[in-house]
């Protein structure tokens, strides 16, 4: 199947500051692709390049088989974008916001109620957005990105700073959209979100992709595996961390299993953050 989004050797700089430097990846239809990196890593600039907000200084963008620069208008008719900043119209209601964006896509009979229901805003759809909480605004922004039933969905930090309920609503929507067949590209610095949602992730730092694969693969290949054993010893409860990667440690684990003083045994796998640190030499925040 043809990729929905292709980025080839993308580069962009704000004056002297290089924001994106040789970024390449492809996202398939129905795939959730996470771009993971700390603030200032180049995630938002990458989205701007892919959505036609910026023109690449070098490299190529293709979305839905269309050229990112020459066919910008045709691409923008088929994508949905959720921005990091809460750029909705505060003096309009959620319904009016959605209807307005629907009309920009040439949709005169938009099913606003269905969209509001999907993001849990049915009750407050008629209220002005100026009275909304941050989570409600974010949910409205996601609903706005869906007005044209996009073939590609770009989500820039969609759950940043949200309460757990709002974040869960948005994550469910992302899964639904991918299940519908939309390619979803989301940026985040939340490793758990990326781990939970993304089919593949790309680690990005200082404008470069450091690694790219399925989260599970990255963790297995680049993280460490261990088992944490709690046991009752002479001085009270003790803990032992046994690496599953080191020679001989598995023998120690086998020796411990079945002994009466063992209280609990937990397997521990590397997190995406551990893997990111291994690549970038610094954390995600």
């Amino acid at each position, binding site marked *: 199947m043809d990729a929905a989004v292709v980025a080839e050797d993308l580069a962009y700089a704000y004056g002297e500051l290089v924001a994106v430097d040789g970024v390449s990846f492809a996202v398939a239809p129905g795939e959730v692709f996470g771009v993971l990196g700390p603030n200032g890593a180049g995630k938002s600039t990458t989205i701007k390049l892919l959505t036609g907000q910026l023109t690449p200084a070098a490299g190529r963008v293709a979305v839905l088989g269309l050229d990112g620069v020459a066919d910008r208008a045709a691409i923008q008719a088929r994508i949905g974008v959720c921005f990091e900043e809460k750029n909705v119209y505060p003096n309009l209601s959620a319904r009016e916001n959605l209807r307005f964006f629907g009309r920009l896509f*040439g949709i005169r009979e938009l099913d606003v109620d269905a969209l509001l229901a999907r993001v849990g805003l049915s009750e407050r759809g008629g209220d002005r957005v100026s009275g909304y909480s941050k989570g409600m605004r974010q949910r409205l922004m996601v609903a706005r990105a869906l007005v044209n039933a996009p073939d590609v969905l770009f989500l820039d930090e969609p759950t940043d700073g949200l309460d757990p309920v709002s974040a869960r609503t948005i994550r469910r929507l992302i899964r639904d959209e991918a299940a519908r067949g939309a390619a979803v590209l989301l940026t985040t610095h939340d490793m758990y979100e990326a781990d939970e949602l993304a089919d593949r992730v790309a680690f990005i730092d200082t404008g470069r992709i450091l690694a790219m694969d399925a989260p599970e693969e990255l963790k297995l290949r680049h993280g460490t595996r261990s088992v944490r054993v709690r046991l009752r010893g002479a001085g009270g409860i003790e803990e032992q961390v046994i690496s599953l990667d080191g020679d001989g440690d598995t023998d120690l684990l086998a020796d411990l299993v079945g002994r009466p003083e063992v209280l609990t045994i937990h397997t521990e796998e590397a997190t995406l953050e551990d893997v990111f640190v291994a690549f970038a030499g610094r954390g995600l925040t």
Partner: protein
Amino acid sequence: MSARRGIVAAILAKDLRAFARDRFYVSVSLLGLVAYVLLFWLLPATVEETVPLGVRLEGAGPVLTGLAGAADGLDVVAFDDAVALETAVAAGDEVVAGLDFPPGFLADVAAGAPTTVRVLLPADAPEELRPALTALVRELAYLVAGETPPVTVPAVDEAIVGTDRAGAQVSLREQLRPLLVFLVLLVEMFALASLIAAEIHQRTITAILVTPARVSDVLAAKSLLGTGLAFGQALLILLATGTFVRGWTILAVALLLGSVLVTGMAMIAGSLGRDFIGIVFWSALFMIPLTVPAFSVLFPGSAAAWVQALPTYGLVRVIVGVTAYGDGWSQVGADLAVLAGWCLVAFAVGVVVLRRRVARV
């Protein structure tokens, strides 16, 4: 409806809704309209062309009548008491100046004896009033003495160039009309600048520009909104002040050009202003010089060359020419052409500045 027109219409409708929900601008616009119209109708519609002069001269009824007849437009108000005359001059309601003749003035003048007349002037009396009153006193002295001035007064052949406005001067109400139109235009300029600035700083413009909408659609919608708001309200105020009796087509064209002019400037102010204070600053920077020509109508004399060079001078000239002097296309054509030129410049600069600003968001 084509896709492009549909997008422009959608942005326009959204902006109108946002404007209608902005209590500040709606209040300012509505209150302004009502206040300006009220002010217009409260101002005098005619110009008082007689000069009321207070005179205290004992036993001189016939002389006073003669005095009134001696000068055109002089309205003599007799006073019996010097203090009452001084009070009236100071108040300035009843008389603009006073002549306080001493007791026995008539007899002294008739006998050729020296005497002094007190000329009472208010603190804000124009400089030229003093010699005029002195001349009047002298004329009165000749009148009382029953003599003619010791010179042969040359005949005067008075020629009025243009329309003789004697008895039909331009009233304060009519002089104020261009200023009222300007205030409306400028409030709408400020409102549009705020809408543009909000669109940029709330970054809603970026959300619009990742849809099929283009920068040109946004510019078209903002231009239509700004011109429409300014033109509509300027039209309303001219209608409410009974201006569209004659030359309404010329006035409509002039207002439309004026609205385009302020729309261009609103685009510049909205692009440059980063917050409310910034918008106020940039708007004021345009508003103050633009209003000067409207003030120049309020004061006698022709406008200075630099005032005539201001973009809005042509608009003021057209409004005054049509409403006060009944000018037609041939008289105001040149002013309209200059105004149209300024519109093009302001609008082109506004579009360029806004386009560049949007591209940087």
